[in-house]
């Protein structure tokens, strides 16, 4: 019984944590942070344009 409660609490905590990460940070942002942590920052290039052909 104790084991079941412990496992249930762990699964619940994990699910709530994942939901928090997705809703408040987002997987893309998180992946960028992890990438940056390992020194592999995304290359960014800004391109100017006029909405004309």
């Amino acid at each position, binding site marked *: 019984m104790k084991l079941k409660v412990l496992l249930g609490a762990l699964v619940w905590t994990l699910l709530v944590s994942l939901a928090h990460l997705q809703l408040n940070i987002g997987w*893309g942002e998180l992946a960028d942070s992890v*990438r940056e942590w390992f020194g592999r920052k*995304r*290359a*960014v*290039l*800004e*391109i*100017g*344009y*006029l*909405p*004309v*052909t």
Partner: protein
Amino acid sequence: MTTHSETGSVFQSRKFGDFAPIKESLISRRLNASFILAPLAMKLVEDGVPIRIVYLGHRDGTTLMVGKDSPIREFTDLRGKTVAIPNRFSNQSLLMHRMMKRWGMGPDSIKLIEVPPPEHPTALSAGSVDGYIVGEPFAALSEIKGFGRPLYYTKDMWPNFISCVLVVRKEMIDEERALVQELVDGIAKSGKWLDQGLEHRMDAAQIVGKHVNFQDPKLLEFVLSKPPDRVKYSNLAPLQADFEEIMDLAIEVGILKRRLAFEEYVDTSFVAPVERLDWGFDQLPRPTAAEVGK
């Protein structure tokens, strides 16, 4: 829209309303890459700004417009009239000079005034100008609204006309070669996809109109289909012969002081055979609800 490419690079577009602030941003390095007018790119290189033309944005796609009920029926009817051009350093300006020469008219026989492209249709409807020459969709806008009439398409005046080119600062070329290559390949693939059929063009009109340029998709559908060769997205490699002709005209008109060597202002090393490039999809990816809400 997706915020990064398949390889993880982030390409962010930054919209401007005129070419002057783009020029300033390139000079001050607030921008490392941009689509700008071909003669303006040459002028910046002449002035010592370290940029290179690496690819074209499109071919043709410019129209000389006059009022719908105007008595102007051919080019010589523009003698003594006022015509708006996007910029002194534009190929549209050089085209007007080329046409004046071809029709035996003096260089001052048409008054050319600089007007930012988005304001061209308003200038015509207000009667400030008798005509205007500009890249689409601002030419088609007056046609759709019922007060403008195309006098000539560039495909009829100067086939394979070059208007905007992709320029990249030299530091980016030297330090971020792979990133620039990815951008050029992306433009080549997009051009190939657009010219594969009318249904692709209609799809692009919807996505670009609603989520990128914030223009009426119907206007873009019109531009991309009536006629379909009004603007072309193939053959976008910068060719020396095309630029030599622009250079000749720019020197003749006096916007460039000296002849630049092709290698001084163009870097062709990013041009890859377009046969090897393909997006591999039929319809453009749709933005998710969350991305639309951003």
